[in-house]
């Protein structure tokens, strides 16, 4: 198991956003995380990546307790994530966006010129894979929303993460790009990276994911193959409120 949580709980002003969640992410798979709005999916991401601290419970990565670690340490341990509303560095060039990621803090590397390191070659490689390498010198804010999503994804891979958390990769992008992102995720998964994807686009989830976890009221209520989950009456109940 790359990532597991035990009794993870977070309360915001009396509302239990995540409530005693026990989750196990399957290694080497594309894991889907679905659930109604407000079921705690994004809070779960924020807890796992260290952006907020849990009230109780533990997060384990490769068997190591990473609860309470700062986000950059968790990133160094091999977790990468994208945000629901695409977050890039708007007033920096595409290439400089790529060179923000730090894999380890060594003074000599940090003081080296941005253009002088082998990182530039890696950056170009990932930009090429996402199909935006021709935009290298553009300021990120001039990119279209779809291109910004691809840039955010590309920048995450500069950290060479073994586990990648994607928060609504299909949100706000056109159908053709959704297919492209799905294909990319499948390819990257085939190369050995594990994914956990929050997504509302059910077609995308069904096409892309091997294993789906369903959240309701801050904890998993069902999991299994996409087909099994779709047939689960508890899932229908959560979504339709019947």
């Amino acid at each position, binding site marked *: 198991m790359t990532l597991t949580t035990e009794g993870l709980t977070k309360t915001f002003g009396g509302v239990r956003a995540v409530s005693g969640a026990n989750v196990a992410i399957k290694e080497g798979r594309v894991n889907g995380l679905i659930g109604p709005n407000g079921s705690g999916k994004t809070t779960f991401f924020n807890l796992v990546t260290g952006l907020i601290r849990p009230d109780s419970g533990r997060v384990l990565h490769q068997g190591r307790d990473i609860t309470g670690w700062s986000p*950059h340490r968790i990133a160094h341990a091999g977790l990468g994530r994208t945000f629901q509303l695409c977050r890039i560095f708007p*007033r920096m060039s595409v290439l400089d966006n790529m060179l923000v990621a730090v894999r380890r*803090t060594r003074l000599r590397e940090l*003081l080296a010129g941005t253009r002088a390191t082998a990182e530039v070659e890696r950056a170009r490689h990932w930009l090429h894979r996402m199909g935006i390498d021709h935009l290298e010198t553009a300021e990120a804010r001039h990119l279209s929303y779809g291109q910004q999503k691809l840039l955010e994804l590309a920048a995450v891979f500069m950290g060479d993460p073994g586990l990648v958390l994607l928060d609504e990769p299909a949100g706000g992008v056109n159908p053709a790009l959704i297919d*492209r992102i799905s294909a990319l995720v499948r390819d990257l998964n085939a190369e050995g990276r594990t994914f956990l994807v929050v997504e509302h686009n059910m077609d995308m989830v069904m096409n892309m994911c091997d294993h789906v976890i369903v959240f309701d009221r801050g904890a998993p209520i069902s999991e299994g193959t996409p087909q099994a989950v779709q047939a689960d009456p508890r899932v229908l109940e959560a979504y339709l409120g019947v």
Partner: protein
Amino acid sequence: MAAGVAAALAYPWLVPNYYLVYAGVLTVMYAVTATSWNILGGFTGYVSLGHSAFFGLGAYGTGLLVTRAGWPWPLALAVSAVLVTLGAAIVGVAAVRVRGASFVIVSIALVSVMNLLVQGWRSLTGGSSGVQVPAPFPELSRGQTHMVFFYLYLALLALALLTWWFIGRSRFGNGLRAIREDEDKAEMLGVPTAAYKVAAFALSALFVTLAGGLYAVWFRSLDPIFLFSIVLGAYMVLMSLLGGGRHLLGPLLGALIIAPAGEYFLIALGESQIHLTATGVLLVLVVLFMPEGIIPKLVRRPAGASIREETAEQRLLEVRG
């Protein structure tokens, strides 16, 4: 560039009187503080109004080590700079935990606390009557001393500019810029943002401290109300923003405008507070109408068109899948 350096080096020999040399020292001194302020402000977007605290501490540290301990001034200056920078790193750990307006308030608190401390600790600092520092070069006239300090400040300015340039082209600097754009996102990409900010804060304090230390031996009369005032800190902000905080030479350009203008108003309007009001008004105008400063207005990049073409091309690509 070369012409600018040559003009700076020749300046004291070209002007007709020592008063203009004095004004030159003041201008270069302000340029050092603004460039140094910009190591934090320009890269990370953290606006400190309290950097005068480091100027004052540099001045008092150097002045007191010379007068009370009898140290030679270069040693006093170096020791003060090291101690104040270390202190800045410690204060920085706490200060950069808060962002935006809260950080501005914390930075103001810093300089206010220092002001009270220095004025209150009379036995050491002489309180509000200040400190009188002996002449650093007794064999030189006042005018010749101005000449010497012009070049000392010029060397310090070169050092501060070099530091900014070096950081700007490094991955560290790239990370600092990412903090300005989206701090949490940068942290999530593995950037140890807290450590980066503390390092920038301390480096930024270093050259301001050195400028303050030189001021102690140059000006020789230390007045806590001027040294630990928000006005001095606001000058650094104004000069950086006016010139352009994202550019190496922005703060220097701002200093070349603000410092002579300040001196001119002081002569034209006398010892009134009107020049302070003018500073405030100017700061508001710059923030409202020219937040990027002058330099971006001068250097207009012809990149706009080509990006639009690429975007269109890419859109086609997206539609085709």
